[in-house]
């Protein structure tokens, strides 16, 4: 990369691609060629930059100027002004919601400055489809180090001392897992990369693979050497075509370079990797179900022990780690266990990648040191809640996790409407929840794979619990009764409550069922499926009571409990009887004409909520 004066790192993650970032890249290349800058300015398509909310994105290196929400029309201006005349274009830079002046440099943005990149250290800096870019960033040097100067036992010891724990959700110590698989007898052993990222609301693994596929391969190679495995499998979702494609390119390149195959670096170590495709079953993220699926069987979990470390794929000892776990391995080898374990808390070391989504200004992918407070993630990195709404809860761990209420943040709830000035120091007290495995578990949730969904006052917590149960009941494989039947019954009770037909006895039954399913299910899917129910029952019981006793949904989300009416004044003065609601109403329940107030016939209204959604003048009252 050194021969170019300027490198334009255009984000080609799925989000930016959906916003036409490839067209912007082509336009840039055209414009640069026309201006005869081809020898000075290079355009690079990178993996996900993380700040998805502001896409399409481009970072100008080496200065680190950050341009956002680009369109093709902006291209001639930015090429002329910035790359020809050397004047960065202010109007294409990021302006925080409560600021007037733009922030030119990426490193000065709160969204980036509070992050610490380990697993994602190459994001936005390399072309994921070029192995040389990865090698240029110390790629495969950790592999060279272990193969030429470390014994497998030393590698395992290093990982143990680093304190690395599984990033897929469970949090098992990676070094211990490796040691167990190494100790198992058998001449054939496997390592597996679990890229079956099925949690709704999570895209960490996809982003890692899309932005830096080689780091996953290098991690697996090191693990295979430590364990004594000859073959690797990457089990990836069918729904992630771009990640799969980049992974295949990476594997082919690594084979060409002799980094996969026979006698790697002229040592006795041989290893190769294949991709196995998922076929759309959430339960296959569970390790025994994953193995069954790779073997061509139904993705049903089986009781453990025996653990895969003893009896895994094709009955052989198998070590399964998640994408993010593998991505942490090379840098631990290069920088040492001591360095890694200096980051984080006593029991949770290193960083964690989260997908920060929902009712938050800066949606995107973030990597933060363990032990950071929820407050820092939501308000400093996430930029707070849009539209001046009140923050209510954050859901972590997907369908297996729970909802953590606003009261766990170091602020009085009434202060949460305001976004405090950036960089102001806030007193942290016991309520400032630290993000680590133990604290999240204590709060009734879990680290999970890293989905973090923010909810505001307009979200109904009963509806959220019902939403997750709808998911788990569909995804339950059906093998064990508590999960198959229990989740379905819980879903039915929650549906009753959201329709205003629930009773206090239902609430009791719901709680009992939740505890039974949690304690008696066969695998992690069932054992954690109750968490969304239990946490909302603990923290938001008043919302359940409102649905049952007052037959009201405080957030106005449960539509069966709402009454929709039209404010005649607003309809006429602001909307001039525009008629959009009348045209969009699927039940034809709305009557009215131009410049006259419209009316909803309550006998016909099906309470679908479409009118409230399409009215631009806020003239629909929901009560």
């Amino acid at each position: 990369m050194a021969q170019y004066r300027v490198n334009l790192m255009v984000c080609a993650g799925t989000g930016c691609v959906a916003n036409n970032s490839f067209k912007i890249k082509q336009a840039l290349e055209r414009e640069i060629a026309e201006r005869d800058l081809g020898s000075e300015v290079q355009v690079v398509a990178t993996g996900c930059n993380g700040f998805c909310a502001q896409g399409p994105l481009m970072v100008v290196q080496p200065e680190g100027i950050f341009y956002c929400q680009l369109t093709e029309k902006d291209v001639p201006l930015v090429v002329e002004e910035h790359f020809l005349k050397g004047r960065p274009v202010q109007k294409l830079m990021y302006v925080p919601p409560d600021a007037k002046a733009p922030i030119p440099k990426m490193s000065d943005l709160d969204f980036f400055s509070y992050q610490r990149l380990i697993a994602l250290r190459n994001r936005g800096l390399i072309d994921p489809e070029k192995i040389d870019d990865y090698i240029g960033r110390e790629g495969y040097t950790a592999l060279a180090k272990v193969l030429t100067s470390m014994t497998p036992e030393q590698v395992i010891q290093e990982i143990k001392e680093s304190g690395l724990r599984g990033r897929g959700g469970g949090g098992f110590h990676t070094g211990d897992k490796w040691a167990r698989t190494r100790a198992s007898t058998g001449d054939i052993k496997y390592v597996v990369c679990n890229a079956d990222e099925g949690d709704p609301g999570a895209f960490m693994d996809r982003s890692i693979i899309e932005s830096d596929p080689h780091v996953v391969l290098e991690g697996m190679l090191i693990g295979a050497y430590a364990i004594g495995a000859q073959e690797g499998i990457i089990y990836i979702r069918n729904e992630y075509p771009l990640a799969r494609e980049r992974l295949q390119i990476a594997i082919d390149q690594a084979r060409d370079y002799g980094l996969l195959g026979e006698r790697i670096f002229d040592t006795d170590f041989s290893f190769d990797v294949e991709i196995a495709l998922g076929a759309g079953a959430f339960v296959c993220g569970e390790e025994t179900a994953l193995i069954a699926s790779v073997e061509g069987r139904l993705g049903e979990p089986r009781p453990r022990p025996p653990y895969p470390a003893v009896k895994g794929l094709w009955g052989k000892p198998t070590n399964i780690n998640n994408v993010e776990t593998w991505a942490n391995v090379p840098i631990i080898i290069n920088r040492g266990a001591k360095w890694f374990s200096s980051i984080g808390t006593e029991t949770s070391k290193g960083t964690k990648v989260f997908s920060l989504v929902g009712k938050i200004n800066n949606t995107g992918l973030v990597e933060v040191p363990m032990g950071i407070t929820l407050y820092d993630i939501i308000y400093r990195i996430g930029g707070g809640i849009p539209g001046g709404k009140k923050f209510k809860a954050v859901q972590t761990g997907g369908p297996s996790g729970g909802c953590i209420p606003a009261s766990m943040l170091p602020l009085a709830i009434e202060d949460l409407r305001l976004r405090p000035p950036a960089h102001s120091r806030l007193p942290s007290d016991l309520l400032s929840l630290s993000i680590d495995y133990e604290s999240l578990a204590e709060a009734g949730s879990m680290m999970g794979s890293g989905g973090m969904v923010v909810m505001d006052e307009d979200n109904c917590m009963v509806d959220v619990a019902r939403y997750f149960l709808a998911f788990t009941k569909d995804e339950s494989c059906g093998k064990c009764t508590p999960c198959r039947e229990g989740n379905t019954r819980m879903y039915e009770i929650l549906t009753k409550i959201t329709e205003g037909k629930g009773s206090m006895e239902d609430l009791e039954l719901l709680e009992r069922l939740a505890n039974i399913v949690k304690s008696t299910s066969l695998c992690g899917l069932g054992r954690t499926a109750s968490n969304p129910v239990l946490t909302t029952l603990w923290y938001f019981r008043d919302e359940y009571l409102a649905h049952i006793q007052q037959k009201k949904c405080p957030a106005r989300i449960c539509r069966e409990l709402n009454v929709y009416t039209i404010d005649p004044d607003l309809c006429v003065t602001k909307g001039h009887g525009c008629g959009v609601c009348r045209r969009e109403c699927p039940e034809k329940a709305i009557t009215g004409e131009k410049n006259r107030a419209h009316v909803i016939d309550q006998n016909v209204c099906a309470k679908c909520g479409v009118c409230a959604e399409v009215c631009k003048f806020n003239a629909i009252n929901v009560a």
Partner: protein
Amino acid sequence: MQQVETIIEKHKGRPGTLIPILLDIQNEYRYLPEEALVMVSEKLSVPLSRIYSLATFYKAFSLKPRGKHSVSVCLGTACHVQGSTLIIEKFERDLSVKRGQTTKDLSFDLEEVHCVGCCGLAPVVTVDKDLYGKVTLTKVPSILKKYRSATAEPVN
């Protein structure tokens, strides 16, 4: 069924090939035709019942012919909290089908999916390989129009 034979040949002789074979057949025909499954059963000496159990367990497979275009509305958590239920209901009305069904003229399938991993753009809809972010009720007809006529560029 010539393609089915080619697909089977491509995977033959390696362990655990049943699911990749079915995925390839699904990609080729956009569903799993009965004759194809019978052929797989005979060629690989696998009971048809086992193939049927796989085909009904995994969501990627369909036993019925699918439409020309595949509309998937994301109901992942991020999309859910941004109101994706209203969006899928709008598609159901405009296409006159329920989710999981195919329109009578075989032009569209309507599916719900749980997270396509573009949560920053929620609510998200995909049609075939095109992705639409921040979809609103009023954008739905214009999205469908693109595919009702000839092939065209995605609208945003």
